[in-house]
């Protein structure tokens, strides 16, 4: 019996899809049988992030409405034979699926896969309710910005109201240099406010743009810092106890000078 994990955030653009793609790919590269489900109906993107956009025939709505069987809609990944994508429909809207259908689908996926990762759309309306309907666990993605933290707080409240207890937090796009200057909230500031358990911190990293350009999740790039962060998150999801990666920035010469003459 597998596990269904929903990746959500409230606010758009904080990295839900990138996170879903990387966690899914990471779990698959560790040998698990994984399916990634894009529930952002009308605005599908998980397919392009994974580089699978040319292979789509059927989609999520075809499966839930009985137009095709689940197996027909699943797209096998190019790199891992044990990784699959269930793409969102692009020409319909969120009301084309309801939470009941998503629960049924989740049960079907759990029977077949070790992990089903659900990529949730932004917002708190039906798309969100669909995405969380069949989930066993939730991961909340948040960037160190006032707007993202506020929305994450709202989402955590809604998850608990839906009986999805103990959601885990991923802090995404952290810039250690800005944290050091006091111009960005630090990990402890955000944890202080949201009061949930942290499952990983992903530094801002240009390699994410490059990997999305190519359609190859950064988690496979051994030289990528964000990729390393996602590899650690993957292991934590599997239940391993892994320390946070070291995000310290080298101290600049001006900083050292200031400290030397007692200005800092």
């Amino acid at each position, binding site marked *: 019996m597998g596990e269904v994990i929903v990746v959500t955030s409230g606010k758009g653009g904080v990295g839900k899809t990138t996170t879903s793609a990387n966690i899914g790919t990471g779990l698959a590269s560790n040998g698990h049988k994984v399916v990634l489900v894009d529930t952002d109906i009308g605005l599908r993107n998980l397919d392009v992030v994974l580089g699978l956009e040319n292979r789509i025939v059927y989609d999520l709505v075809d499966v839930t409405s009985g137009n095709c069987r689940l197996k027909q809609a699943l797209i096998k990944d190019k790199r891992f034979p044990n990784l699959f994508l269930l793409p969102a429909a692009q020409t319909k809207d969120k009301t084309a699926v309801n939470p009941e259908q998503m629960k049924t689908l989740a049960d079907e996926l759990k029977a077949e896969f070790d992990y089903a990762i659900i990529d949730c759309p932004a917002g708190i309306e039906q798309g969100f309710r669909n995405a969380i309907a069949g989930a066993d666990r939730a991961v909340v993605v948040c960037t160190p*910005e*006032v707007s993202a*933290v*506020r929305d994450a*707080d*709202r989402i955590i*409240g809604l998850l608990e109201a839906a009986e999805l207890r103990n959601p885990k937090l991923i802090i995404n796009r952290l810039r250690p240099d800005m*944290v050091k*200057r*006091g*111009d*960005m*909230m*630090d990990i402890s*500031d955000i944890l*202080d*406010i949201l009061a949930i358990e942290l499952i990983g911190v992903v530094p801002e990293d240009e390699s994410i743009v490059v990997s999305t350009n190519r359609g190859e999740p950064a988690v496979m790039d051994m030289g990528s810092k964000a990729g390393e962060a996602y590899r650690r998150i993957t292991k934590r999801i599997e239940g391993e106890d892994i320390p946070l990666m070291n995000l310290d920035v080298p101290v600049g010469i001006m900083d050292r000078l200031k400290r030397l003459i007692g*200005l*800092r």
Partner: protein
Amino acid sequence: MLEFISRMLGRESASSKTVAKERLRLVLVHDRASISPAMLNKLREDLVKVISNYMEIDEAALEFNLCQDDREVALVANIPVVKMKRDYATKGLAE
């Protein structure tokens, strides 16, 4: 320029992260409270119960609100007292 000098002297005005955190703290008090009016109602009932142990209050005229200005969030209650309860006063003396 002044800011630059104070920066050089290490007397930075509040860093922007401190501002962010403080603003978030305030906005979330309100957000979290507005998520459940039921909680606010429950609190009002509990408060009335406790106060009624000590004094008789005019429940109909009771005002109970979460107020926010840009510096703080406050729970403001205006509770008209009809009369004090004598039995509490005697109990209080006995102790």
